[in-house]
């Protein structure tokens, strides 16, 4: 009786397994294939690419597409600005979030309730696109590098993730440091920060990816400033140039837009340049951000 039951179960289990593996395979291919395809085209001769039929490896291998884009000055300044905003934005974001998180983790801090509510509300209220635009304009931040790092400096979500991590540390550590004569800032710097590394790594990844991937602030505030455009914005210009959406290039006429059309392979090469830094970083930080995500979700 029992063996019959088990046999029946294993039969249906085998089908179940088959379905699971088939589905997982499809998902994996659907996720990975587009990237491999883009990579292959970026290394393929651009006139040959037009013939089509390139899958996951280049047919006529060349690095000319990359030479072409790196010779283009807009890309180099874009790269510089993107790296700069990623570094500065990440550091400032980490400092603000960790400092606020530390003060909020201190139950004895008088202004704790106020600060906490004040920050939490920012997650729900926002003035919207146009009031923010006017504010930036009135603060004379248009056409400056600061619009990349200042408006989004304080993120309540990040503060709360780090805070819940600090809450998990024993308070006795802070007390013993205090007995040794440390002030609150020293405790933050010497005791809390080193112990919060896993949470900080998660937040750093979020901040860095956010900074690296941002393009809309460039479009909105710095689009006409040649020295301040970011890599994503340059990529957007190139990609949009071949879509039918000519009016994204407000004020420019059709011939100008057509002149900007670059070969598919060159477009794909830029896409790869924009993507590679993230590809290199995220698998190493995976352990942390999985933890961080779950932590943040429980809190909010």
């Amino acid at each position, binding site marked *: 009786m029992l063996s019959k039951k088990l046999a029946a179960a294993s039969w249906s289990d085998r089908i179940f397994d088959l379905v699971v593996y088939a589905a997982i395979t499809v998902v994996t291919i659907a996720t990975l294939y587009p990237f491999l395809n883009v990579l292959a085209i970026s290394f393929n001769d651009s006139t040959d690419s037009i013939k089509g039929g390139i899958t996951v490896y280049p047919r006529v291998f060349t690095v000319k597409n990359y030479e072409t884009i790196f010779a283009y000055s807009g890309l180099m300044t874009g790269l510089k600005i993107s790296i700069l905003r990623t570094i500065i934005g990440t550091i400032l974001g980490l400092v603000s979030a960790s400092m606020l998180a530390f003060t909020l983790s201190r139950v004895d801090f008088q202004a704790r309730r106020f600060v906490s509510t004040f920050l939490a509300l920012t997650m729900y209220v926002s003035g919207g696109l*146009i009031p923010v635009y*006017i504010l930036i304009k009135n603060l004379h931040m248009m056409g400056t590098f600061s619009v990349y790092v200042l408006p989004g400096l*304080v993120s309540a979500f990040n503060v709360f993730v780090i805070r819940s991590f600090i809450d998990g540390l024993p308070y006795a550590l802070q007390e013993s440091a205090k007995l040794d004569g440390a002030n609150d800032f020293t405790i933050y710097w010497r005791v809390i920060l080193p112990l919060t590394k896993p949470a900080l790594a998660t937040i750093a990844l979020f901040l860095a990816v956010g900074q690296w991937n941002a393009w809309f602030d460039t479009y909105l505030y710095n689009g006409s400033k040649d020295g301040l455009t970011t890599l994503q914005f340059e990529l957007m210009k190139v990609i949009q140039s071949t879509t039918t959406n000519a009016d994204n290039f407000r004020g420019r006429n059709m011939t100008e837009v057509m002149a900007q059309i670059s070969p598919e392979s060159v477009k794909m090469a830029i896409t790869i340049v924009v993507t590679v830094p993230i*590809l290199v970083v995220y698998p190493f930080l995976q352990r942390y951000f999985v933890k961080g995500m779950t932590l943040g979700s429980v809190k909010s």
Partner: protein
Amino acid sequence: MKAITAKVQPEPKKPASRFWPKFLQQKYLYMMAVPFVLWAFVFNYLPLWGWTMAFQKYKPGKSFFEQKWVGLQYFRELFQDEQFFNALRNTLAMSLMGLLAGFIIPIVFAVLLNELRQIFLKRFVQTVSYLPHFVSWVVAAGIITKMLSTDNGAVNDLLMSLHLISEPIQFMAKGNLFWGIVTASDVWKETGWNTIIYLAAISGIGPELYEAARVDGASRLQQVRNITLPGIRTTVIILLIMSIGHLISIGFEKQFLLGNNLVRDYSQTLDLYALNYGLGLGRFSFGTAINIFNSVVSVFLLFVANGIFKKITKESII
């Protein structure tokens, strides 16, 4: 009576006299918090003041008191504009589709991943599935446009070689396909990422439950249905309610990057409408009215969702 007041009276004074000594004692904590609070005030709260623009005939360069108040004129204009209802329809359609797909598919994917028994394979698939989350929408839109293109796009090639279609479909030029394309792109980009929370919830289920089920002769499918799915029920409900609150604020990034003139009737969301007709044309007041409408509806939906949530679970998330 007198005795009571006498007792109570010193109370209000006490915090005031305690505040300053403690303030000095905690000066470093204040120094670490106050600058950033001011920061948040400037960039998060000051723009709310900008909402007054919607009720004024806002002219840049003039001070607040020099602006002309016009009451609800811009809201009336908004509700008379056909494009507004179009944008509202698109926003609701795309957010509902995104909500459904972006909600069900990650759960299914989490369950599937959990059923993989080789740890290495599981980690590999997981790592791959996060990848699209980390690339920007600019990159994603470029890749998606390439995949869907009529000349040698992977999707058309696949459909052709399977003889499902006889000639390539112009995916990016068909308005009625746009909502589906946006939803599918979102699924492609975010499924792996959204799975993290469900996987964490599943790993919190006690293994003894599965063992007991196995002893009772439950098949793998039955285990999924009777243990895994009920085990993540609370997580599912919380996430569902939270996403309902954000229902209408789907933004415009995807629509901006994937859309084009040919599909505009289907791609314009409320935010994109505010961008094009408010900012693009310099009609700041009108655009702000759209922003306000958007926020009010969002908050309304959040409260409705929370109300439903309270009824079901007797807990509140706000």
